[in-house]
C-alpha cells in the first residue's frame, strides 16, 4: 500500500520578490512540486472554487496546503481565509498565514477565522527560508490531513 500523495501548495502572494524568495526556499527544501501561485485574493478564491479564470477546474483536486499573504489587492487575505474556513469543502485544508504584519489585530483575527499557523516573515533570509521550509515540511509531510467525506 502506497501512502505518497501528490504535494500541492497554493501560494497566495502579490509581492514578486517575496514570491521568488518563498519559492526558492521551498525548492531548497525539495517541496517545490506542484506549487500553484495566485497573485491576489480574488484569483485565489476563483482557483479554490473553480470560478472565473479557473472555471471548469475540478474543485475536488484541492491543495494540501495554502500559504496566504494577508495584504493582498482586491480581496484581502483575511477574507480569503474566512471564505475557505467557512466552506465545508475547503475548511479542512491547512492554511498558514505568511505575512509581514506583526499587528495583534491581524493575528487575533486570523486565529478567530481558524488559521492553522501564523508566520511573521522575518527580514533576514535565513529566518524566512527556515520558517517556510519548516511549515511546509510540517503540514505536507508530517501532518496527516483528515479524510474529507465526499
Amino acid at each position, binding site marked *: 500500500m502506497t501512502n505518497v500523495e501528490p504535494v500541492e501548495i497554493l501560494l497566495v502572494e502579490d509581492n514578486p520578490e517575496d514570491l521568488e524568495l518563498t519559492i526558492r526556499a521551498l525548492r531548497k527544501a525539495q517541496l517545490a512540486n506542484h506549487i500553484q501561485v495566485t497573485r491576489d485574493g480574488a484569483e485565489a478564491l476563483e482557483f479554490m472554487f473553480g470560478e472565473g479564470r479557473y472555471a471548469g477546474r475540478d474543485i475536488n483536486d484541492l491543495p494540501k496546503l495554502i500559504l496566504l499573504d494577508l495584504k493582498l489587492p482586491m480581496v484581502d487575505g483575511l477574507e480569503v481565509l474566512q471564505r475557505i474556513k467557512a466552506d465545508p469543502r475547503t475548511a479542512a485544508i491547512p492554511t498558514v498565514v505568511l*505575512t509581514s*504584519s506583526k499587528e495583534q489585530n491581524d493575528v487575533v483575527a486570523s486565529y478567530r477565522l481558524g488559521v492553522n499557523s501564523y508566520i511573521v516573515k522575518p527580514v*533576514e533570509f535565513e529566518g524566512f527560508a527556515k520558517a517556510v521550509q519548516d511549515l511546509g515540511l510540517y503540514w505536507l509531510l508530517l501532518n496527516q490531513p483528515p479524510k474529507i467525506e465526499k
Partner: protein
Amino acid sequence: MIAPPPCSYRYGLATAALASAVVAGLLGQRLWEVSRRMKRAEELQQREASLLSEAQRLAGVGSWVWNPATDEVSWSDEMFRIYRRNPERGAARYKEAEKLYPPDAWGMIDAAVEKTFTEGVPYQLDCAMVREDGSMGWVVSRGEAVKDASGRIICLRGTVQDITERKQTEDALRDSEDKFRSAFAKAAIGMAMTDMEGRYVEANDAYSLITGYSREELTAVTFHEIVHPDDLESNLATMKRLMAGEITDFVMQNRYLRRSGTVVWVRKSVSLVRDQLGSPRRIIALIEDVTVRKRIEDEICLLNEELEQRVQIRTEELEAANKELEAFSYTVSHDLRAPLRAVDGFSKALLEDCGESLSEDGRHYISVIRKGARNMGALIDDLLTFSRLSRLPLQKRTIETNRLVHDVLSELGAHEEAQTELRIADLPPCEGDPALLKQVWLNLLANALKYSRDRSPSVIEVGATQKNEDEAWVYHVRDNGAGFDMRYAPKLFGVFQRLHRADEYEGTGVGLAIVQRVIHRHGGRIWAEAQVDKGATFYFTLTS
C-alpha cells in the same frame, strides 16, 4: 329690702369678665341683705356664704362692700386669696388699700371711687396691684354705689378680678406679634400675602424692591400680573395642587415682571393659610431675587456644554489621529519590511549562487548590505513595538515575576552562557500587562547581558526591595559591564538615544525607551545608576 341698683356696666368686654361681673353684682346684693338680716337668718346666711365663696374661688373674682361713712369694709374669701392677705387680719380698710396698688393705679382708683360716691357713677379699671407678699399682678376692679329707697348713697360695693395670667399671655402675644411684624417688615426676603384671587393683602419692603411696585401700588395689581406670562401656567397648576391639599407648600424658580417691564428671576416658597374650617384663605409667598445667581448658573451651564463639546471634538480628533497612526504603522509593518527582505534575500541568493565567482571584497560588500538590511529591519520592528505600546490598552493581571524572569533568561540563552553568573533573588509578584512587562524584562536583561559580555565572569543580579510595607516594590537589574557616564543619564530613555558606539555594542536605541514607556503606563518609575566600566543598575517600580 333694697332693690338692686340699675346696672350700667360696659359690656364690650370679654365674656368672662362680664359673667364674673354679673356674678359679683348679685353677690354684692346678697351680702348686703345678709348683713341686714344677719340675726334673723344666720344659718341660711352661713350656708349661702360658703356657696358664694366657692363660686368666687372658681371664677377668680372677689367682692367687697364698703361703707365710707363708717369705713367698715367686708371682703369675700377670694379677695384675701387675690391679695394674698391673711384672712385673720380682716379686710383692708380704705386707707390700708392704698398699699395694694402702685401709686398711679391708686390715684385712678381713688378718683373713681370719689366720683362713684358723689355722683353714683360706676367704675371699671384695669390696674396693677401689689400683693401683700410684694409681688405684682393685674386686676380688673369694678365698683358701684348702693342706694336706699330714697336714692341716697349708703355704701359702695364692687368686685376685683385677678387677670394677671391673662395679662401675661397678652403681653407675650404682643411681644411675639411685634417681633413678627418687625421681622416681616425688615426681612431681606420678599414676603407677601394675597387673597385667593391673587390680590395683595400685605407685602414688605423687600417684596416691593424686588417687584418694583410700591406697597400701595401692589394693592392695585394681582399676583397673576406680576408672574411672567410664560411661567404663569406652571404656577397656577402648582397652586391648584396646593389648594387641593395635595401638597402643603412648594418652592419654585420662575420669572416675575417688574413694574418697569424688566424680568427678575425669583426663587419663591409658597404656602397657604386656611381658616378654621380648612378652606384656603390666604396665600403666603416668600421670594428671593436670584437673577444674578441664575445668570451665573446659566453661564456655568453654557461653559460646561462648551467644554463638553470641546472635549468631544478633541476626542474625535485624537481618535482620528490614532486611527491614522494605526494605518501608518500597519503600512510600515507590511510594506517597509518587504523591500528589506528582498535586499537581504537576494543578497543571500547572490552569495549562494554566484559566491564562487565573487572576490573576497565582493563577498564582504554583500555581507555589509545584508547587515544594513537587518539593522533597518530591527529598527522598524522596535519602532512598531514602541508605537504599539502607546496605542493598545493595558491588559492587567497578576504576574509571577520569578517565573517571568526565568522564562526571559531562558529565551535569551543566559543559562547556557558559561561565563555568565546569574544571581536571581526571590521576586514578589506584580500587577501588569504580561506581554508588556515581558518586554521590559527582556530589554533590561538583554542589555545587562550585552554590556557585560566581555567580562569574565559577567555577573547579572536581579532583585527587589521594599522600604515600607505600604510602599511599592523596587525591582532592579544590575550588571558588571560597561556602564555609562552619569552625565548622560537624562538621555538614557530617549528614543534613538545611544550612549555607546554601534561598533562596540549593537542596538537601535529604542529598547530603553520602550521600557520607560511601559513602566510609565503602569504608573511606575524607572531610573538608573552607573559608573563607566563598573556596570549599571536599572531600578523600576510598579504600582501593585
